[in-house]
């Protein structure tokens, strides 16, 4: 394949990487106070890797923001901490529990933690005066996201208006905002789930161990396998079982299900996903299941 070299062709992963790095640098250059939103999940960790590359050998020119739902998987928080230490970055934690205590969001006992994250996040953005927030959202995840811009404008209420988006042309991003507004930035917009995994494999990226197959106590509920923990206890008729599982996405423990799997390394995961017949969110995310337009509604309110 010497022709590849002569033609100056970049593989798709290299092209995606180049595009994402361009976005990180553009935001760092044009916004006063950016922040990187990190859940500790694989997508946000891939963002950290790309940001590391974008500014090397300098440190990240922005802090990392994590919304602590109080129901996060300990393995995810551990991975987050390893990355923060590796990058020498500043970590800002916005806690849902604290937001409830301060009356910023209301826990009526019926609202999910996922939903309470929205108010907590918007408050953290406002209190810290962040003008741009990087998120790990990908357009292949969900139909509403397929239409979202890489620079996604949010009004002073943090809301997304899908009918009033700015056109986005070439690689020219418009970062103008008015006081009180902010921009969500999605550097992974053009990546697919499989791209993310290929990149994790290629770069040997350190991700939370719960993505790999392991034995875990689980409870079957609503067609999902939830991890038994302080946050999820068996209800009447349910029982705790020990199964070999892995997680395809990580959110809070009450909503994120796992799948039965023997894929205990990244190559096996890629193999498994390549033949998977159900989307990662459809398989394991209770929060997207409520209605056909569930994601669209949460996005309008200010979800990631």
């Amino acid at each position, binding site marked *: *394949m010497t022709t590849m*070299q002569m*033609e*100056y*062709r*970049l*593989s*798709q*992963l*290299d*092209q995606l*990487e*180049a595009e994402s*790095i*361009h976005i990180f*640098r*553009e935001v*760092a*250059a044009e916004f006063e106070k950016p922040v990187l939103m990190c859940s500790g999940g694989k997508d946000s960790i891939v963002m950290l890797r790309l940001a590391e*590359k*974008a*500014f*090397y*050998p*300098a*440190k990240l020119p922005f802090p990392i923001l994590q919304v602590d739902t109080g129901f996060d998987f300990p393995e995810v928080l551990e991975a987050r901490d390893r990355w923060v230490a590796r990058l020498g970055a500043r970590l800002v934690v916005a806690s849902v529990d604290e937001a409830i205590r301060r009356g910023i969001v209301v826990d009526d006992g019926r609202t999910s933690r996922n939903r309470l994250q929205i108010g907590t996040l918007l408050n953290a953005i406002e209190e810290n005066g962040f003008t741009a927030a990087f998120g790990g959202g990908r*357009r*292949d995840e969900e*139909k*509403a996201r*397929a*239409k979202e811009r890489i620079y996604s404008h949010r009004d002073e209420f943090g809301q997304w208006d*899908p*009918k009033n*988006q700015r*056109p*986005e*042309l*070439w*690689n*020219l991003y*418009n970062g*103008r905002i*008015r006081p009180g507004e902010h921009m969500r930035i999605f550097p992974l*917009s*053009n990546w*697919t789930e*499989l*791209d993310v995994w290929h990149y994790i*494999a290629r770069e040997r990226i350190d991700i939370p161990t719960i993505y790999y197959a392991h034995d875990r106590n689980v409870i079957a509920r609503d067609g999902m396998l939830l991890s038994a923990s302080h946050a999820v206890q068996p209800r009447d008729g349910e029982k705790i079982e020990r199964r070999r599982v892995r997680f395809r996405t990580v959110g809070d423990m009450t909503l994120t299900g796992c799948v039965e799997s023997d894929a205990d390394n990244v*190559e096996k995961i*890629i193999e498994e996903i*390549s033949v998977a017949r*159900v*989307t990662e969110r*459809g*398989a394991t995310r209770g929060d997207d299941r409520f209605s*056909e*337009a569930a994601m*669209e509604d949460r996005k309008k309110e200010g979800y990631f």
Partner: protein
Amino acid sequence: MTTPNTAPEAVGTGMDLLRFATAGSVDDGKSTLIGRLLYDSKAIFEDQLEAVEAVSEGRGYEYTDLALLTDGLRSEREQGITIDVAYRYFATPKRKFIIADTPGHVQYTRNMVTGASTADLGLVLVDARKGLSEQSRRHAVLLSLLRVPHLVLAVNKMDLVDYDEATFTRIHAEFTAFATKLNIPDLTMIPISALKGDNVVSRSENMPWYEGPSLMHHLENVHVASDRDLVSARLPVQYVIRPKSDDFHDFRGYAGQIAGGVMKPGDEVIVLPSGFTSKISSIELFDREIAEAFPPMSVTVRLTDDIDVSRGDMIARVNNAPKPSQDIDAMVCWMTNKPLRQGQKLAVKHTTRTARALVKDIQYRLDINTLHRDSDVGELALNEIGRVRLRTTAPLLCDPYARNRTTGSFILVDEVTGVTVGAGMINDVA
């Protein structure tokens, strides 16, 4: 760049990427075609298909409406039309594809221009029963104006004309004649049925008279690597990296995405607009030095001399550099309700450089149906395209759009609302 690894874990990493934009009228079957490409390449998952099957059944359709797979936002599903650019992804063992799916509806030129701006290939659909419509011509004009190098005309619904060769030949001839007026370096026409799957992924047995490739075969094999300008080296400086740490005390790197040409360590370069010259000491990609950089790589370039370089500057070769100019002659697509007028002031973003611009005059409006030039126009309305002269507060470092789509394009931004209101393609630099 190295020999592709054929180990299982490398599948997907050695592929390249094709970005294409689709256009078609509401009824040309575009969503069905995209649905089929996604479905046949297994980019559609069971839960998505089940949802679509349920809706189709609920509406009493006899077949699964694949168009439902792509109609993303609730308001669109209610209206049954696509209102904005949507991006879709699928991959075959050969390539990864990014589709910019743009609505064909009359008032949405702006979306089509947006989708085409990053496309390597444009896919225009026509209904075999109706032949070339005003809209299909308009889509071809826009793709040509945006210098999308490859165009595919998919003549759809061949099943409804009994796979008739004469129908295809007639449309083929009509479009060939029309295309001579445009800049389309590579044109391919394919008879298909998106609904039945003819010539979409595999060659159709219903049209033995057609000897060309299936649509998927063409998308997988069309040659795009040489579409970019590899002659004129251009690096718009995006960000200056200065770690100020003990390990990298004197490090000063100019980060950016290569917009044209090939850069190598040792190259004599000029920094614009200052005109200082220096030599590339190294090109870095994260923690390793590379031998050459080409588009669209994001790299960090270091120079041998300690000269003043900042964001918005352009690094080029000494004997092949863009000429800094404050007088810009461009085709502008206007994208907002309030019309563009002479004397108006706007912000302009070109590469990594932002300036203010004054609209000197609107020379003519291009009728994208007839290609007629209406001079004597006082303004450009939403979705209109015209030739405009701008005077900028700072020099832009640009090339003609026909030579380089990155250094030849800009956006116009309303300084009060902050909204992107126009897209420009530079004709010439005064």
